[in-house]
């Protein structure tokens, strides 16, 4: 798969395969094209060439908003929430893709819509509770600190009942112990919802602890693929990405 913007080549013939049920890591230096790759999968960008198969279905031509129906959900590198709305209301958006009914049904409040709304609310509260955000459900999102927005986004993505979850730097801005908790949550969720997860992260601790396999991107091209440990000992990866001492530091 490739992607160009004007003259700039962002992704250059990248291919890889994510096995069902695995947690897959995507790492690489800044500007390597990780987020852009996510954007291609989620349909926000149209790849210049190549194909993307989700569960065997070609999705490159599908409009982005249909991707949720394919069971795809993602978080964003910069959390994007409705700051004026409550945390719960933000999470509830996740239920959009599986809730039934159009404008007519909703303006008449037909019984099925009410039932689904209650159901979604309960699930949303449950998810918030389990990610440690239950106390914030009723608060406006802008009263939460930056770090907590990530958690809200995760809940929103999970509420859409995804099969494939794309996480873009979920640990950015979290302290060490918070990262530990995040790792726990993701593992638990994967088990429970039979998720396949692709995660972009610079936090090598998280990558090592969480992922089954990683792909390393550099300048839009695939540098290597293997386990996290393999990646961290690969000299090209250390050179291009980790930097010598940092690599040693982080793998501690």
């Amino acid at each position: 798969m490739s992607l160009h913007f004007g003259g700039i080549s962002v992704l250059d013939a990248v291919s890889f395969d994510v096995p069902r049920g695995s947690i897959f890591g995507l790492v690489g230096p800044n500007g390597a094209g990780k987020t852009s790759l996510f954007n291609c999968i989620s349909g926000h960008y149209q790849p210049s060439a190549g194909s993307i198969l989700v569960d065997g279905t070609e999705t490159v031509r599908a409009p982005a908003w249909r991707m949720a129906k394919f069971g795809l959900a993602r978080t964003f590198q910069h959390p994007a929430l409705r700051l004026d709305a409550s945390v719960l209301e933000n999470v509830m958006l996740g239920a959009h893709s599986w809730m039934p009914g159009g404008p007519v049904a909703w303006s008449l409040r037909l019984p099925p819509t009410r039932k689904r709304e209650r159901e979604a609310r309960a699930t949303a509260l449950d998810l918030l509770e389990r990610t440690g955000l239950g106390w914030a459900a009723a608060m406006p999102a802008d009263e939460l600190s930056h770090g907590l927005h990530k958690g809200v986004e995760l809940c929103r993505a999970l509420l859409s009942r995804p099969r494939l979850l794309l996480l873009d730097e979920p640990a950015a801005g979290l302290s060490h112990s918070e990262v530990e908790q995040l790792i726990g949550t993701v593992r638990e969720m994967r088990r429970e919802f039979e998720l396949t997860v692709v995660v972009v992260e610079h936090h090598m601790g998280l990558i090592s602890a969480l992922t089954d396999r990683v792909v390393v991107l550099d300048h839009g091209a695939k540098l290597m693929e293997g386990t996290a440990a393999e990646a961290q000992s690969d000299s090209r990866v250390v050179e291009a990405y980790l930097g010598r001492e940092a690599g040693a530091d982080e793998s501690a």
Partner: protein
Amino acid sequence: MSLLELEDVTASYGHAQVLHGISLSLPENGATGLLGANGAGKTTTLRAISGTVSTTGRILFEGRDITGLGPDRTAHLGIAHVPEGRGTIGQLSVRDNLLVGAYQRRDRKQIATDIDYCLDLFPNLQDRVKSNAAALSGGEQQMLAVARAFMAKPRVILLDEASLGLAPSTARRVYDAVVRLRREAQVSMIVVEQNANLAFSVVDDATVLETGRVALSGSRDELMGMDAVRRAYLGG
């Protein structure tokens, strides 16, 4: 005498008070870290200093009370704040962003040199000097925000999670540059950093915040020696 002194500072967003009396002091050419859980008030403390949140108490900079001065005034005095999240001016090019950073300066020639220095430090930016900042990757934007603070030639630099979204090697490079800045240009700094390993590699001492109050503070070695701190921030 300390360069920057916070005395019993409180801060609030609208009606919600989030800092409840923070005191802190940053010596000339010093570097201090701010630690704390999400929502502890680290960002808000930095905002109080740069004047982007409503504040009471006393904040002294070079002995002068700067409490309540707006961000442009504090910036003018030499306090550069690298904010959390997207701190770039999206619809300006990378170069223009750097020029904005140097707005207060008059030394044209030196500005050009400094831009080159920044682009050198972050080769990613070099390739994209002409594109809009908003097109950059997350990490590239973070680099640009840091570089813009450098361009201001500040006396104090407030770094709010400057390594956020940076690749490990790049993060290292940022902090190396910060250390060099401190050594060569006598810049003092307050560092907020979740990656405590990085933070402790540059600071002399640190303060731990907890729900808007100072929970403890001490020198780098003292803190690193404490189990609780190590467990929470260093993962050891």
